């Protein structure tokens, strides 16, 4: 949650209303950062780049799709699931915990 105290938010997750991840069908994963206002949206928009997501999630830059939706203050990223759903090495069946590497990114304080 965004803080209105003097404790400046440190991570994207703390600045956002919600950062979430989920399967988008069995073969894709999608991440979304829901920001509370235009100012924090601009911070998320600047942070979330092809290079960053590719590094955090070990996916090829060419396979990434990034949607920037200023009207909703949302940045959405989709990419093919790096591990096949339900396979021996899939530890997150719904991909519901894969937002954490992105949410933990340190961001500049707003304002």
């Amino acid at each position, binding site marked *: 949650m965004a803080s209105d105290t003097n404790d400046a938010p440190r991570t994207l997750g703390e600045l956002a209303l919600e950062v979430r991840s*989920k399967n988008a069908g069995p*073969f894709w994963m*999608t991440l*979304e950062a829901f920001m509370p206002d235009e100012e924090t949206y601009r911070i998320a928009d600047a942070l979330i780049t092809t290079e960053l997501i590719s590094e955090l999630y070990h996916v090829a830059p060419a396979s990434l*799709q990034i949607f920037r939706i200023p009207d*909703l203050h949302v940045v959405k990223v989709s990419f*093919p699931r790096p591990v096949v759903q339900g396979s*021996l090495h899939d*530890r997150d069946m*719904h991909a519901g915990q894969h937002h954490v590497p992105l949410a933990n990114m340190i961001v500049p304080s707003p304002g």
Partner: protein
Amino acid sequence: MPDQSGPPDSVGILVPTGMLGGGFGPGTITRGISLGADVIAVDGGSTDSGPYYLGAGVAKTAEHAVRHDLRLLLAAASSARIPLIVGSCGTGGTDSGVNWIAGIVNAICVEDGLDLTVARIFSEQHAGQLISELERGRIHALPPSEALDAATLGRCTHIVAMMGHEPIEHALRAGANVVLAGRATDTAVSAAFALMRGMPPGPTWHAAKIIECGGQCTTNPASGGVFARIDHRGFTIEPLDPDSACTPTSVAAHMLYETVNPYTMREPGGTIEVASARYTAIDERTVRVEGSRFEPADQYTIKLEGAAVTGYETVSFTGIRDPQILRSIDVWAEFFDQTLTERVASVLELAADTWGADLRLYGYNAVLGELERQPARPAEIGVMLLVSAQDQQTATAISKLANPLLLHLPLPAMNYLPSFAFATSPAHIDRGATYEFVLNHVLDVDSPTGMFRLEMGPSHGF
């Protein structure tokens, strides 16, 4: 059935829950009927919980929960004289799933004295027929998958085709009060009746996408059902829980949910385009949407889903609390993998490519694995060992070989044997066959209904 002589001004759709068996209160239905519902639509399936349900042809939902929901829905549909449509019956949408739901519907109708015409639409496909379509060049891969080969089709335990709205509309026109569909697009289940009654495809498909997950498009996603009224210019949507709300943001944001692309979504007959949709609050809990479009495709395509057996698994679980081991847990895990690999080769004489193991350190880095950038220093770790082999006997044998390691494996530098905390006796559980989704392909078809088999009958009659 309502009068079908000409298109009405609008069609009201009641979606009581995002998943049949998910549960809802009687107030959900009463409210939806009082708003003038013309149809009740509910989804009965999903791929989201993994390939097991399609692969094994069994449902994820509990029979009691499904019966509870169906009893309320059948009573409401019968007394309001409106159709009930259930899509993707039995989680995977297999023929066994359709028949399972039909059996429950049948029993309720007998018990509650309901006299309804029930349509079953089967969507399961034979590999042999699809192989001939493949040879004719009519099956195409969707990203990120590769081109299909015949062997992959042959490996599937179940293959389903995802129907659009046409087979459901066909059943409704034939007089069905209750339509139990095999695998269908989530949207087709909600869109079918409104399209049949002449509502425009843009607003209808967009509304169907928004309501198919129930309360997910509201400010309280746990609250359950939603109601949409589609007319000739757009649609309005509101939650059925009076304490929940639809806002322009909650509705617009739902196009993000479990989608790759939030602006376009492919259906069998074309593409839903919502980039130019406008979301307006009518009051504090109702939203109006206009400007959605549906672009018909040049080629009608049916998406295929299939699951194949990938092996047989055994799972073992132990707990480590010893701080000395925990301080060097990465070293311990590497030593474990190395020791198990050597023992399997020397004792069982298995080739390395015929089996696999996944050692998961819960409490440390199990969930994210190599993507974990900040592993915590844990107070204790749950160690799960998942073993996969080509048959159950071998998976079990490997797990039994791993058992003393999960109990006693020291760090390489330790000069005594620690003992860890098994959670159960025995420490392993055979999981049986494991599956994988192996189809992500579409088939070009000439007829939207040709791949689907319709059977109609009285609710007491099968």
